């Protein structure tokens, strides 16, 4: 049985009438990489701030390493390294000075602080630039320095808020593999929030999709896609050179087959949802019919689809709920005025 290192129980936060985080329950186990996904303004940062005791929840509790973050934030901050989404440094100081300052604030002894800082900079690959002023740093270098900043304290948990923001694609890949490697080597628990789905998919053990203050779903990506697309687990796209008209007939014919659930023809592409992987059969069929195939693509569900699907559902529900809530209210209002 894995022990949760981060435990959120009914966490709620309001900004005026807006519910930024709504009754959130979440457990994160030791040593795992958890991705908190959601669109902008979903309440990811607010949740993180509450975990660190940087803002007070309206209701509920956040326990990190078994400590209540609202009541004892200092103890939590000793164990948690937090990298904010737009990390800033003191521009008048060099990178290593910035890092040593943070080290001193964390009570690292004066005689080992410089070696520790140099080691950490070596881990994130900034050894050559450590005597540069941070004002001369690029966004990606700042992000790396931010990670060094988190690592110098030997934290048990790392919380990264939008760590990939503003880095170029190759930089992102490098950065995430660094995080992954560190987590595996040192057994660190990592919580990272992002709205970049692909990147999160690469490194996370588990993800939670977060929309409008609510955790819609959590679990590893495979489970998520199975739950969501369980019935239509194979989607095959076949693209031909011919136009839509000529595709209609074979589409009708294919619809007769048992293992094909649904067929959708868009321009010169046929989208087939199948119960089994029948890609070879389909290719043979189209070739026999004399079509000029230009592409066959088997869709695999990634986070993007999961995310969109959930987001769509959520929106639909919202519209429905909004209506019913309105009715409910009107009903009550009438009753009250009648009395």
């Amino acid at each position, binding site marked *: 049985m894995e022990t949760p290192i981060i435990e959120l129980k009914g966490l709620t936060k309001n900004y005026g009438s807006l519910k930024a985080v709504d009754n959130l329950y979440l457990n994160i186990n030791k040593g795992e990489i958890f991705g908190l996904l959601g669109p902008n303004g979903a309440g990811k940062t607010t949740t993180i701030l509450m975990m*660190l005791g*940087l803002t*007070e929840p309206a209701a509920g509790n956040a326990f990190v390493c078994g400590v209540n973050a609202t009541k004892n934030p*200092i103890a939590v901050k000793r164990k948690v390294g*937090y990298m904010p989404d737009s*990390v800033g*440094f003191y521009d008048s100081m060099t990178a290593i000075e910035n890092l040593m300052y943070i080290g001193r*604030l*964390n*009570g690292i002894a004066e005689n080992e602080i410089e070696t520790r800082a140099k080691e950490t900079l070596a881990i994130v690959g900034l050894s050559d630039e450590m005597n540069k002023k941070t004002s001369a740093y690029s966004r990606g270098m700042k992000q790396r320095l931010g990670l060094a900043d988190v690592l110098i304290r030997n934290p048990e948990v790392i919380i990264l808020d939008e760590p990939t923001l503003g880095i170029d694609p190759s930089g992102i890949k490098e950065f995430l593999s660094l995080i992954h490697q560190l987590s595996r080597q040192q057994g660190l628990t990592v919580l990272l929030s992002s709205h970049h789905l692909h990147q999160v998919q690469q490194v996370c053990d588990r993800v939670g999709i977060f929309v409008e203050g609510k955790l819609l779903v959590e679990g590893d990506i495979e489970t998520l896609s199975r739950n969501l697309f369980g019935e239509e687990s194979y989607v095959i796209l076949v693209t031909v050179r011919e136009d839509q008209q000529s595709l209609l007939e074979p589409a009708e014919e294919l619809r007769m087959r048992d293992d094909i659930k649904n067929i959708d023809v868009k321009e010169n592409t046929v989208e087939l949802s199948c119960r089994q992987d029948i890609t070879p059969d389909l290719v043979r069929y189209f070739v026999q019919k004399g079509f000029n195939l230009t592409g066959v693509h088997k869709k695999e569900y990634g986070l993007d689809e999961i995310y969109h699907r959930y987001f769509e559902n959520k929106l639909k529900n919202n519209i429905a709920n909004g209506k019913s809530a309105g009715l409910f209210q009107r009903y009550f209002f009438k009753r009250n005025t009648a009395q």
Partner: protein
Amino acid sequence: MVSPLVYFKDIFSKGILHNSRVQHKPVSPFWVMVRKETGDHVRSWRFIVMLTLIFLTFLGSMYVSLGNIGKAVTNMKDPDRLFIYLKLLTISDGTLPTFHIFISFLGPLLGIALGFDAINAEKNNGTLTRLIAQPVYRDNVLLAKFFGALIVVSVLFFCLALLMIGGGLIITGVPIEPVELLRILAFVVLSIIYVGFWLSLSICLSVSFRHAATSALTAIGIWLFFTVFYQIIVNLIVSSILPGSDYMQPGDIASYNDLLLSFMRLAPNQLYTDAATTLLMPSVRSLGPLTMEQMAGAIPSPLSFRESIMIVWPQVTGLLAATTVCFALTYYLFMRKEIRT
């Protein structure tokens, strides 16, 4: 045979070993922050500018007072003539204001310059989130900002005072009286408290305003209001309320004067000037008007240091109270504020 040097072998290295053991103990985060703040201030351009400004006014007023010291010391009507060092700080031939008058309007500027962007600049740079995410108490952040700047100001004022005393010693060759030293030190402490008030006010503004420019302008606005407009406004209001002086009894005039003075003393610079004058001029016995009965039998002689302190105590308390109020307000604003970029 053992060389006698053996006995000395560890004398120094012991000390070094001991020192390195001391270094093992980490400094508390508060002092780490104070150290960084102090370092930042000393290296910052605005402090260098303020330092130059204050140093130049100091040199100017010293030059003027040194030129007139001969006249002042031989003026037999002045009971304070023998306090040469106090005279150095207070006399002028009218071309330049004296040093404490200079401080009464440059001090606020120094305080504002050191504090106006204390919190909001860090917030805008994204460093505040990073700082707060470390295991430090929030109030320590504020206190470190205040302390760091205050240490810089204290060192500056003590240096100037000691420079003045040293220069005076060399130029006049007259040894300094202990009372003079006490009075000058008390004046320095008073000046630090005065700058401290403006510092805490500007830190308070830096917490409540998002942009450093806004908080700087507001702080300068408050400063201008108190140095220039406040006296004008109080005079205007009082003169429009008062009946003409021809129709008033002498008792009424005295009570109205008292009223005017108490309104004036709401301004921190008035408190400072009153207190500084009393400390630097031992013959000043009261800050308000005295009646003839009170004056009867008084010999025009300097007061003792203790008595001068008694006179300025309300002023000092007032300044300290104003500083505390500003600081408490800053705490209130900052402690539960959510910090995000």
